[in-house]
């Protein structure tokens, strides 16, 4: 769309004695766009009448590199897709390769994967709430609280995998190293203390009038549009659609755990925000069950040949419920050491497609709240 088209006022506005529309470029350097995201916004006064996202400022050729690297070599690259949740990215990729090559995973490894994925969900949602509140003007405190909790979980990741953020922990057919009993003890302690933080944080969110005013009835998304646009994850469930891949697909050992899927009603920013808080409660429940049930045993399938790994000819799509939504990897193998086609289905990119629909008719200050509630990570959006 060119500038003259963008500047055409919508029909409803013509009867008013308005001046010209103003075109504002927000980003790529902006404190609240969560990275190098840019929006061209046409404003009528303070109201958004047109919004055009501009992508590609962090396009790092992830898929092309994936096609030129061995199957194992792509694993560290998946860490850098959604750099908050490297564990879930690893899992989704390992799952699709396992589907492609028909690899079995030992029981203990599956439990470890569930534990690490839920820990990732906790730290992702906690940081998201921190960022969202700091976008609303609660500068500092909520983010500090969230990062305090995040650091505890990152310590666990670090002692297990050797890296705080880029864990590169999972392999096809299991996990790289086993978690010792002392690690499990530490993890249990952190999980036991997490609800305390949640209660404190929810008290800040729920009873805060400013948060309620800024989020309720802002950026409403209808269930119909959400389904048509392919939304997944908390964005979709905030509209009241009961769709959680942990329940639908039952990958990993999720059918063995008792947990509920929180659902929203209105599909506004407040519901999306609450969805994260409620999901954290459920994650804590899953973690407690998994840590109770985890059996002893190997964490790696000994039959898997990691080096010079050549899956049979075919294609596979593996998907998991990442913290942001359905994260899938689609692989086509031609029998060689590299995938013929390597495609990522990024949840935050697809959840971002409805941004204009959410923002129209709201003020420019609400755009930041709506964008924050979508929960994007640019590494995944641009890849």
């Amino acid at each position, binding site marked *: 769309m060119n500038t003259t088209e963008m500047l055409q006022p919508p029909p409803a506005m013509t009867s008013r004695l308005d001046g010209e529309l103003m075109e504002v470029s927000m980003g790529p350097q902006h*404190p609240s766009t969560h990275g190098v995201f840019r929006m061209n916004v046409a404003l009528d006064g303070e109201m958004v009448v047109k919004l055009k996202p501009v992508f590609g400022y962090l396009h790092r*050729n992830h898929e092309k590199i994936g096609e*030129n690297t061995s199957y194992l070599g792509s694993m560290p690259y998946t860490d850098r897709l959604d750099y908050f949740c490297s564990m879930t990215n690893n899992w989704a990729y390992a799952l699709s390769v396992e589907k492609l090559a028909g690899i079995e995973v030992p029981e203990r490894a599956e439990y470890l994967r569930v534990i690490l994925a839920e820990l990732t969900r906790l730290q992702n949602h906690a940081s998201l709430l921190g960022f969202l509140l700091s976008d609303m003007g609660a500068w500092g405190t909520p983010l500090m609280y969230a990062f305090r909790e995040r*650091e505890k979980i990152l310590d666990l990741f670090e002692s297990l995998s050797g890296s705080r*953020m880029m864990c590169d922990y999972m392999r096809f057919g299991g996990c790289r190293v086993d978690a010792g009993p002392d690690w499990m003890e530490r993890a249990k302690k952190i999980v036991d203390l997490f609800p305390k933080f949640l209660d404190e944080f929810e008290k800040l969110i729920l009873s805060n009038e400013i948060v309620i005013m800024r989020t309720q009835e802002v950026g409403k998304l209808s269930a119909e549009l959400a389904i048509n646009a392919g939304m997944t994850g908390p964005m979709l469930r905030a509209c009241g659609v009961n769709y959680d891949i942990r329940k639908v697909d039952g990958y990993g050992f999720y059918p063995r755990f008792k947990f509920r899927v929180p659902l929203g009603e209105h599909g506004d920013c407040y519901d999306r925000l609450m969805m994260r808080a409620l999901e954290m409660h459920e994650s804590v429940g899953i973690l407690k069950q998994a840590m109770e049930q985890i059996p002893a045993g190997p964490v790696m399938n000994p039959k898997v040949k990691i080096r010079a790994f050549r899956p049979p000819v075919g294609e596979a799509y593996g998907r998991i419920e990442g913290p942001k939504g359905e994260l899938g990897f689609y692989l086509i193998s031609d029998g060689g050491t590299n995938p013929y086609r390597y495609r990522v289905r990024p949840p935050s990119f697809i959840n971002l497609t409805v941004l204009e629909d959410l923002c129209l008719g709201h003020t420019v200050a609400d755009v930041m709240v709506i964008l924050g509630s979508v929960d994007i990570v640019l590494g995944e959006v641009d890849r």
Partner: protein
Amino acid sequence: MSDQIDGGLRSELQRQGIWVTSMEELYNWGRKNSIWPLQFGLACCAIEMIATAASRYDIARFGGEVFRPSPRQADLMIVAGTVTKKMAPQIVRLYNQMPDPKYVISMGACAISGGPFKQGYNVLKGIDRYIPVDVYIPGCPPRPEALLHAFMELQRKIDSQKLTGNAKAEHLDPMQPSEFPVPAFGAHDLEPAANPRLFQPPKIERS
């Protein structure tokens, strides 16, 4: 420490409640303890930058907690993450908008050389091709401690900068540029591919 004052005399005077210093020392002391970074993240390293600013690592202990969203108010640019060819012109423009004296920390493998994404067609192979970099931090991503170390190295550099004489700081020399040409997209790639004043490709000598 200023060389002009005898150390013994100085400590003797300090006992009497007199603090003797030079203009240069006082000026650099003030500058190095209130570095305002530009709040500007590119990729994964930006999250570690936020972690450094958060309570556990607390960059405020070194006087660098005031992250400014506007380049006009910033002293330090932390290039935290992969610089793509689409983003590089904006980074140079942001650098040009910062007031002198200004410093750059190149954080992480991507900002230094392209890192793991170096083979990508859209990734700039190091931000030092377009803007001068003071401190490099290797790592993917570097730990918050590494960023703090880089910050302390920068403070050391600021502390040692001279205000007068032949060896005075670059930003005080009117002949030194404080703005650099912004690259633009040419037919195939960013043009120029690098600022020849700042970056020459390494010459490989073969015997």
